[in-house]
Structures are given as structure tokens and as C-alpha cells.
């Protein structure tokens, strides 16, 4: 299949998660919603369930206002809004981790706002590396398994989890490879985003198969020339309106530190005898993320390192409005960019953005600085 056909296929999925949901339901599968930023998708998958990401949508907020004050990020607001409006009808449960304060409140509101879709909490430890932290992660997983069994009637087996761990590792590898290939290949920012976004709405094995083909095609296809190379960081970078401006201004994303994109695929499940232990170890091994305790701000060094490695000339921070964890990290990121001689730009984004004029002007001005 040609590059364009593969991309069109992924675009279709990225643009219409509801269709995917209906498709899986029609196939007789049960679907479990997973919210940002990390959840044990491997477990859900291993139980024969389809994990589907819910990161909200670009839309107006009405119903969620009954639950949330205006100063909660629009991802949480719109996830709740969609839930209340019945957009997730047919979903068997929703797994919500408590990795930031706003996520903690989502689960509590969910219980009353969307009564027909059970809330399953996943409590991750922040002190995730010591043995006692790993043990606690495991207790969190065990709880998710129990709740999933109740909500869906599905059964858990270690054997199946070992398989799913492998499938997720393969998907990780393919996605990492894609990010590297996309840094060179001729592919727009919008198309790049479709590849990452569609991953949230497909079974990993299905997504892997398509992206693998895409990687092959892109590797052999034309290379992008004469673009301004940047690294993009933030929680979410899926707004087509915003990404179009990147393309219009000849800005090329050569690496990302986006929670919705590459942060998901950096860490594999290690090879260990017990697959639950292995999955807990994976969480312990995860780093370089705002939501994971990071005394040394390794995330900041990582961004600079990745920018340099990919020959990026600048760092664009897409700051989700009201995302306080990312707002704290912005200052050290800004300083580190200055010290490394990297230009940086901070654009506040929000799912209610209708007017992109300001962002367009900022991106244009950024481009002109080079």
C-alpha cells in the first residue's frame, strides 16, 4: 500500500474514534476506556478487552461545568463532558490513574456524572523505583484486574499477560522507529499526529501492522529538505489547526516529548519470569515525564539531549492550559534551552481554542527568528 493510503487509513481512525468503538463492539469485543497519562493497558489487552484512549476532544464544555470549576484542564473537562453526553456508550469501564491532582478529581466526579460506566482507579506510586514502590504498583495492578473482572466478566491469566506484554513491546518499537523515520521523511505534522493518535483507538497488534508498513514506505520515500527542525513537548499536540501552521511555516517536528505521543513508547516491559512483576518493573523504569517524580529534572536534560541528537534548532512547548505539573516544568525547560542555545516558544493550548490567530502569529515570528 502506498504511503498516502496508509496515512489515510490512520487518519480515518484518528478522526473518528466513535466508529472504532462501534466496530469493536460489533465484533463482540468489550472496550475499556483509558485516560491520560499511563494505565496498565497490557493488562486490559491480555484479558481480551480493547483499551481505548480518552483524551477529550476539541469541543465546547457545558455539562461538565456542573462538576468542574473553569480552572481545570480542558482534557479532564472534555473527557467528563463526553462521558455525560453518552459518547462512550457501550464502554464497559474506565481506568483512571491519579497521577496529577486533576486526574484525582476526574474519578470522583465520574462516579456521579457517568453512572453507567464503572470507574476503576489505578494508583501508581511516585516512589516507583525502590522494591516497596514496585510492590505497591503491583498491588495497584491486582486491584485493576479484580475490578475489570467484575466490570466485564473477563478473566485474567499470567500466560495471556506475557503475550500482551510482548505485543506492547513490539508496538513500542514500531512507534519509536516511526518517530525516527518521521524526523527525516516527508510527512506533515498533521500526518505525524494521526499516526500517534490512531494508536489510542486501535488494538496494538493492528496498529503495529499498519505502522510497520508505513515505516517501510517512508524509509524508502523522499526526505524532507530545508525545514526548520524542532522538538515539541507537552501533554497533547493533536490539534490539526495548530499543526497546520507548523506545516505552513516549514516547521518540522523531528522529535517529541509529548505525553500523548512518544512518552508512551519509551519504556518496554522487561523480560522477567512473572509478567505482572515485569509490568510493575516497567513502571519503575519509566522516567522523563512531568507526572513521574523527578527530583533531578531528568526530563529537562532529556529534552535538550533529544533536541541535539535530532539536530533541532528549537523547542516548542505546547502548554495545556491549567496543566499545573507542566507549568512547573516550563521554567527549568526554558532555562535549559537558553543554556543550550536552543530557541524556545511556549504556546498555550486548550481544547476550547477556536481562534488560532495568536498561535499562528507566534509560530510565524518564531520561524522568522532563524
Amino acid at each position, binding site marked *: 500500500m502506498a504511503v498516502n493510503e496508509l496515512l489515510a487509513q490512520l487518519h480515518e481512525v484518528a478522526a473518528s474514534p466513535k466508529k472504532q468503538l462501534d466496530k469493536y463492539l460489533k465484533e463482540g469485543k468489550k472496550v475499556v476506556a483509558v485516560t491520560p497519562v499511563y494505565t496498565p493497558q497490557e493488562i486490559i489487552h491480555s484479558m481480551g478487552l480493547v483499551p481505548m484512549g480518552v483524551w477529550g476532544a476539541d469541543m465546547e464544555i457545558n455539562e461538565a461545568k456542573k462538576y468542574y470549576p473553569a480552572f481545570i484542564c480542558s482534557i479532564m473537562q472534555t473527557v467528563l463532558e463526553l462521558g455525560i453526553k453518552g459518547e462512550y456508550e457501550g464502554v464497559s469501564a474506565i481506568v483512571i490513574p*491519579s497521577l496529577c491532582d486533576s486526574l*484525582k478529581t476526574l474519578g470522583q466526579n465520574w462516579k456521579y456524572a457517568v453512572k453507567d460506566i464503572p470507574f476503576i482507579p489505578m494508583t501508581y506510586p511516585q516512589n516507583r523505583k525502590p522494591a516497596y514502590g514496585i510492590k*505497591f504498583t503491583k498491588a495497584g495492578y491486582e486491584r485493576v484486574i479484580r475490578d475489570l473482572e467484575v466490570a466485564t466478566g473477563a478473566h485474567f491469566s499470567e500466560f495471556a499477560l506475557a503475550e500482551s506484554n510482548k505485543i506492547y513491546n513490539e508496538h513500542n518499537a514500531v512507534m519509536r522507529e516511526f518517530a525516527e523515520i518521521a524526523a527525516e521523511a516527508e510527512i506533515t505534522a498533521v500526518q505525524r499526529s494521526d499516526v500517534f493518535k490512531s494508536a489510542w483507538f486501535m488494538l496494538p497488534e493492528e496498529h503495529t501492522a499498519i505502522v510497520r508498513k508505513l515505516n517501510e514506505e517512508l524509509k524508502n520515500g523522499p526526505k524532507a529538505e530545508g525545514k526548520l527542525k524542532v522538538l515539541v513537548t507537552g501533554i497533547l499536540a493533536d490539534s490539526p489547526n495548530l499543526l497546520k501552521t507548523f506545516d505552513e511555516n516549514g516547521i518540522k517536528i523531528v522529535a517529541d516529548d509529548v505525553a500523548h505521543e512518544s512518552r508512551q513508547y519509551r519504556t518496554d516491559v522487561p523480560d522477567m519470569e512473572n509478567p505482572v512483576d515485569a509490568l510493575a518493573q516497567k513502571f519503575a523504569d519509566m522516567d522523563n515525564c512531568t507526572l513521574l517524580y523527578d527530583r533531578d529534572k531528568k526530563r529537562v536534560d532529556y529534552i535538550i539531549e533529544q533536541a541535539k541528537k535530532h539536530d533541532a534548532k528549537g523547542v516548542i512547548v505546547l502548554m495545556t492550559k491549567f496543566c499545573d*505539573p507542566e*507549568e512547573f516544568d516550563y521554567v527549568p525547560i526554558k532555562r535549559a534551552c537558553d543554556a543550550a542555545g536552543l530557541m524556545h516558544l511556549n504556546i498555550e493550548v486548550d481544547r476550547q481554542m477556536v481562534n488560532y490567530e495568536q498561535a499562528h502569529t507566534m509560530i510565524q515570528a518564531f520561524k522568522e527568528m532563524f
Partner: protein
Amino acid sequence: MGEEVKKSRPAPDPNSAKFKLGQIAAKAYSDAMEAKARGEMVGWCASNFPVEIPETLGLYVCYPENQAAGIAARGGGERMCNISEGEGYSNDICAYARISLAYMKAKEAPEQNMPLPDFVLCCNNICNCMIKWYENIAKELDIPMIMIDIPFNPDYEVSDAEVEYIKAQFWDAIHQLEEYTGKKWSDERFKEVMEISGRSSRAWIEAASQAKYVPSPFNGFDLLNHMAVMVTARGKAEAAEAMETLLKEYKENHEKGVSTFRAEEKYRIMFEGIACWPWLRVTSTGLKSRGINMVTTIYADAFGYIYEDFDGMCRAYANVPNAMNLEHARDKRIKLCRDNSVEGVLVHTNRSCKLWSGFMPEMSRQIGEACGIPVASFDGDQADPRNFSEAQYDTRVQGLMEIMEANKGGN
């Protein structure tokens, strides 16, 4: 506005709880300053970090949240917020954090100084914002960060797995601190601290529960002020003693039929949220002028650090207000409303505090329904004065009062 006429005030009675509590709060700062001057290490400590740990080890600590509240109450909130915003911190970040990060840079604030830290003690049982805030301090000052993770508990009860996780971290924290500061843990000293902390907590909870009398022997705003001692010094003998004095005074007030609420108590409400420190006078006067006494707040129940042993301590720190699920948090408040004959709830929708405000609309609805009382809310911020409107506050309080009045008519 309806302020009491200021008579020539007698010199403060050094035996009064108010005087003692004020002294303890001030002494916490001066002790830390002196320790730092002597060359001892001083830490910055999150308000719900297990203070038993630094106290048992004999470490001096200061409380940035308390400092930020003090700075904000004395009018410095906006100035400090502007400093950190100038550094690139968004004004959506909790104002306590913004003030604290500004203080780290400015190194002084005439409203409330404290020494810069040699280590930070972080505990996220009140919020995860705390983690990011302390990470930034630790990284910038290049000092150790002791991180005790007490996750938000989605269940009503604290699980054994959680207690085990917390316990392991407590010991880890103790060992890290021993190594870094050279101080030694003593089980015997811990027992003492535990007993004192329990004494303070029991006296505090009982003092606050005197609001069960109608009229209440105290103005609930007292609790917001005295709470500072529970935050910073609950493990110190002076604090236990001062809290016991407070309890005694409230009991005497009741017997004598007097109150620190210096107006006729016509209505009794629960105040939900952190005080609006920059607008303390305005928010308090807006109530008092209408005869509304804020008789209780969740703080009356918080700081209940009463436990028998180390495991009990771990459990207690997992049961602080912001770590509880909606149902548990709601039931505690319903009990406070019932025990204290509360007729209405006034909710501070605090722009700084996403966790506290993020499920408050639903929770307060449930409280209102369960108790059959009206709920009103106003927008504010515990430390950034820019996020509060006096006019809105007034309208909301007036509205609440009118419903409470109508409800009385119906009885």
C-alpha cells in the same frame, strides 16, 4: 463595615491561648532562623508531612505554606506572585507555590522571613502540586529532597498495601535524613512526640467541637488562625499545652455564655476551603455583619493525628482531607454539619487548589442534600488577591443568608 468598636484593649494576657498560640507560631520561625545562624541545617516541610520525623530527629523545619499564608494575609501575595510569574511560572499555579518560589529567589519578604532550606521534606497527601513545587526548589538550590508519597485514596478505607508502602517510605525518609544530617532516630523520643502530637490533636478536635453549643463559644475564623500551630508545632509540648488552654477557654466561654464571635449569632455555617488570606477581614466581616458565624470547617477534623504506634501513624497520614475519596470526605463534613447545627455551607472555590475545588461542586451538593441546608460558593484564592471579587462574595453570602432565613421561617 460592621467591625466591633475598638475599645482600648487590655494588654494581651500571657496565659491566654491566643497569646500562647501566637508565640508558638512566631517562635517556630525565630528558632529556625537562630538554628540556621548557628550553622545548623534547616528544612522546608510540607504541611502534612509527618512532622513526627523531623521532630523526633531534632531537626528544625519551616513550613512554606504557612509562610505563604502569612505573606498573603499581610498584603504581600501579589508582589510575590509577580516575582515568580516574571520567572515564567504561570499564574494558574497554586499561589502558595508561586509565593514560595518567589521567596527562594528574593530570599526575603518583610511580611514573613524564614531561612532558606538545606533540604526539603515533601509529602503529597494534600496534593501532587507539592511534588513539582519541591522538585523545583530542590533542583534549583541543589539540596536533597525527601519524598513521601501518600497517594490519593480512591477507597473509603486505607488499604494494607498502602500502609505498607507508606511505612517503608517513612523508614526510608528517616534513614536518608539520619545520613544527611547526622541526627539519630530514637524510638523513645518518637514515643514522646507521638504522645504530644496526640495530646495536641485531641485538644484541638475537642476545642473545635465546642461549636456544638448554640451559640458557639468561638468565631470559626479562630480555627483558621490557630491551625498554624497544629501545622507547624503539633509535636511540641508547648503546642499541646496551648491547645488544652484553648479548649479550657472555649468551655469557660460556653459556661459564661460568651464567645469570641462578637456579634449576635443568627446563623451558623460551615466554611469549606482554605481561608482567603488576602481578604480575611473582608470575608470575615461579610459574615459577622450579618450575624453569620462560621462554626466549623474540615480543619476542625483535620490534624487528627491520634494513633497508637508507627503503623497507626502511617494510616493517619493517609487519612488527611485531600487524600480522601469523595464519599469519605463528604461523610466527615456531614458529621461536622450535624454535630454543630450548621444551617448553610459557604464554599470557597479556590483557584489555587485544583484538588480541593475539583470535586467540590458535586460533594457540596451531596452535603447540602443530606443535611437539607443551602450551599453557596464564591470564587477566590487563598493567596493571590487578584482572584477574588468583593461584590460577588457579598452577593453570594447575602443569597445564602436569605435562604437560611427562609428556612428558619419554615420551622
